[in-house]
């Protein structure tokens, strides 16, 4: 039988580090089922029949935030055999608050006091025996970053799980409240799991929405319970939720007083860093400098060196020549050589070439995340983002999306409010991701050769479109309402561990490499086939007679108003939905590229297809229309509802198409000397509508929705 052990704790207490430590190489990211969980599972190293589950970091088992509900549902419904409750030893009070709730679940618990190295360094002492006595469960001291104590905690958990003795929670509240809980317990005992009668008594006392909805108690029981609760509330002159929360913290204060000996507080290093980094005058310049540095290194300098090398030398020369020589030596058929060299190597190679660059970007982003700086970014940017109907927390997904939209969309889970989260999911992919960077880089090399401003402008435009969309969407019925609460911990800074950063970088880049090896591999082969063969299934000399040209021509009218109504442009756009970088690999395949001057040949091919204006339009459309299928999939999972997914995709198509249309129609008049016609007039109308949407006052009807929004958030 497999033992299930759950890792539970506050955010930032080192849970993931311990999880990686315990599961080692056998860990894998859960397959993101539905909107439910981002919980990770892995087998305990050396114990094939023990499964460790890493639950989202939470502060409480209240029914409000997504993470809390996910963790709570897992603990209540999946019956793990034991829980390891990880606690940040430097912040006992708030961490033990969750502990007081976890020990009520009727599951064996091991307390792992983590970050003991920091605690000792601060000169603090924690009396472990005292804590064991208070909570009635084993306490282990750990330092997950250093790999100390994790195994001991896991073995203790296995030992408890095998015994299978549930923890019997001690009374921790004041006498009148304990009496009230007992009364409620007696009322509901027939309807609930007896081992959890205390948990449910407390939840009924708190009038927990989710618990009330899950059990249908007879009316007279509910009525009696309500009377008891009212009596207690009147006596304490407070509401039940506050009473429970206050008394939990009072209980913890008393425990901490007895079992923790604190060294006199000095200004910690973290405090000193924070004084500078979030300083009133310095914080914004420091923030801009950091972001500039990250992009300068990973996109412009180091990034472009490695990308040029992989594209031109590794794939452009070595692999292509090697493969050609090898195939010639074997003596394979010409069409096969063609498929492998022109189709697959050139297409997949073009995409893989950007992986090193992306890894550099992910490396920096992981350092910013792990060090604790991202939370400060949210703190600094919140005021600004609120103007766009977003929370400061939206900045983190947007920053991650500049690497890849999929983890960016996943990162929106830390935003509690549904409106804010959905809006962020919709808009976060407007920032060019690593794959869109491939398109930008290639088009800049082709059409805007001497202008270093185009690439940064695309990022700025992405930000501008997020701001614009935020403002106009906030005025729509779907998003109206007050912005969400912004109650956020600012964790102490710590030096990111190299291992942790590497795991982050690898998990995110792996996705790209796998994609290049599977989806893009197949897409390239398919496009090569469709473009090399005619309808009679014979190889064609001229691609214009191929199957692909025929298919492309039937729908190219859709893109004609955007200036790339040729079948090649159409095919590239459609294939970009599979993966954005496919736009370039398709163009590479379609232009029959696979010689020593790989990049230059792609440039020549693309150059012959577009004017500078239609190139810009093509680029804009591909940057702002819906992201790749992987990100669309993530969008639909995280949105939780087909209605929202369609709304998001619809908006993205509309915005991308409008941008391409306006650029092409007006650009042709302004720069290419075309006469002002119907298209240009329509483009002006679109601009006027956009300005109207931007400045119009929020409709009065929103007042009602605003109220509803508050309830929806509650």
């Amino acid at each position, binding site marked *: 039988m497999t033992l299930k052990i759950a890792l539970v704790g506050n955010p930032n207490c080192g849970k993931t580090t311990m999880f990686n430590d315990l599961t080692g190489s056998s860990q894998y990211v859960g397959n993101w089922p539905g909107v439910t969980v981002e919980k990770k599972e892995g087998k305990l190293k050396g114990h094939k029949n023990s499964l460790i589950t890493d639950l989202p970091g939470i*502060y*409480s088992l*209240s029914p*409000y*935030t997504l993470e809390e509900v996910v963790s709570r549902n897992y603990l209540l419904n999946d019956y793990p055999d034991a829980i390891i409750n990880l606690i940040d030893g*430097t*912040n006992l*009070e*708030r961490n033990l*608050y969750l502990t007081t709730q976890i020990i009520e679940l009727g599951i064996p618990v091991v307390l792992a006091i983590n970050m003991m190295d920091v605690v000792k360094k601060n000169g603090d002492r924690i009396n472990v025996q005292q804590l064991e006595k208070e909570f009635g469960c084993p306490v282990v001291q750990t330092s997950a970053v250093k790999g100390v104590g994790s195994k001991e905690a896991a073995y203790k958990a296995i030992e408890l799980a095998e015994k299978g003795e549930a923890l019997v929670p001690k009374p921790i509240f004041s006498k009148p409240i304990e009496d009230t809980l007992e009364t409620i317990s007696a009322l509901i005992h027939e309807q609930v799991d007896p081992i959890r009668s205390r948990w449910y008594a407390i939840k009924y006392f708190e009038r927990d929405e989710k618990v009330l909805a899950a059990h249908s108690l007879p009316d007279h029981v509910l009525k009696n319970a309500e009377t008891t609760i009212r009596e207690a509330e009147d006596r304490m002159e*407070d509401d039940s*939720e*506050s009473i429970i*929360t*206050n008394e939990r*913290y009072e209980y913890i204060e008393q425990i901490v007083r007895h079992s923790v000996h604190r060294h006199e507080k000095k200004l910690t290093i973290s405090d000193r860093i*924070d004084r500078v980094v*979030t*300083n*009133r*005058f310095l*914080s*914004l310049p420091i923030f801009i400098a950091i972001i500039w540095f990250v992009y300068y290194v990973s996109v412009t300098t180091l990034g472009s060196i490695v990308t040029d090398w992989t594209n031109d030398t590794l794939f452009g020369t070595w692999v292509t020549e090697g493969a050609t020589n090898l195939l010639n030596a074997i003596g394979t058929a010409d069409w096969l050589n063609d498929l492998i060299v022109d189709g697959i190597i050139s297409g997949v190679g073009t995409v893989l070439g950007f992986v090193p660059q992306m890894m550099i970007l992910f490396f920096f982003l992981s350092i910013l995340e792990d060090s604790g700086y991202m*939370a400060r970014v949210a*703190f*600094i940017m*919140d*005021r*600004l983002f*609120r103007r766009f109907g977003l929370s*400061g927390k939206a900045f983190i997904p947007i920053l991650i999306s500049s690497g890849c939209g999929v983890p960016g969309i996943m990162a929106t889970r830390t935003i*509690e409010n549904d409106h804010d989260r959905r809006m962020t999911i919709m808009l976060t992919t407007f920032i060019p991701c690593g794959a869109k960077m491939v398109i930008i880089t290639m088009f800049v090399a082709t059409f805007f050769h001497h202008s270093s401003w185009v690439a940064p402008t695309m990022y700025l435009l992405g930000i501008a479109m997020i701001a614009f969309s935020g403002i106009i969407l906030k005025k729509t019925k779907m998003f109206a309402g007050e912005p969400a*609460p*912004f*109650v*956020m*911990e*600012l*964790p*102490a800074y710590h030096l990111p561990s190299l291992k942790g950063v590497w795991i982050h970088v690898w998990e995110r880049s792996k996705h790209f490499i796998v994609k290049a090896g599977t989806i893009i591999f197949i897409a390239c082969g398919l496009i090569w086939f469709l473009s090399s063969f005619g309808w009679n299934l014979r190889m064609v000399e001229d691609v214009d007679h191929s199957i692909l040209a025929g298919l492309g021509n039937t729908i190219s009218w859709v893109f004609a108003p955007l200036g790339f109504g040729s079948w090649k442009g159409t095919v590239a756009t459609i294939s970009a939905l599979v993966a954005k970088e496919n736009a370039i690999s398709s163009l590479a395949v379609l232009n029959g590229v696979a010689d020593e001057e790989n990049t230059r040949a792609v440039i020549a091919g693309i150059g012959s297809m577009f004017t500078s204006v239609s190139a810009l339009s093509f680029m804009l459309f591909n940057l702002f229309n819906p992201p790749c299928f992987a990100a669309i999939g993530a969008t639909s999972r995280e949105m939780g509802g087909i209605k929202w997914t369609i709304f998001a995709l619809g908006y993205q198509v509309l915005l991308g198409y409008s941008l391409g249309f306006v650029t092409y129609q007006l650009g042709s008049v302004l720069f290419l000397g075309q006469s002002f016609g119907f298209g240009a007039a329509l483009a002006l109308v679109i601009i006027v509508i956009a300005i109207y949407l931007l400045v119009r006052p929020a409709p009065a009807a929103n007042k009602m929705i605003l109220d509803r929004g*508050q*309830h929806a*958030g*509650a």
Partner: protein
Amino acid sequence: MKTLKEAKPGETVVVARVNGKGALRRRIMDMGITKGTQLFIRKIAPLGDPVEINVRGYELSLRKMEAESIELV
């Protein structure tokens, strides 16, 4: 009644009660801001909002709008 919104950076204040309802109120209390808790107002963000406070030995940020629902002694 004075609320946390009016408190100035550098002040140490004591919570009297948390107003409001639902998720926001519970969140504030879950984070350790309960009756009788001492709060130290550390700073205000460069753009004027949110504020950073020290509560129960850690740093927490909340918006002025939310600080308004925290009544002080």
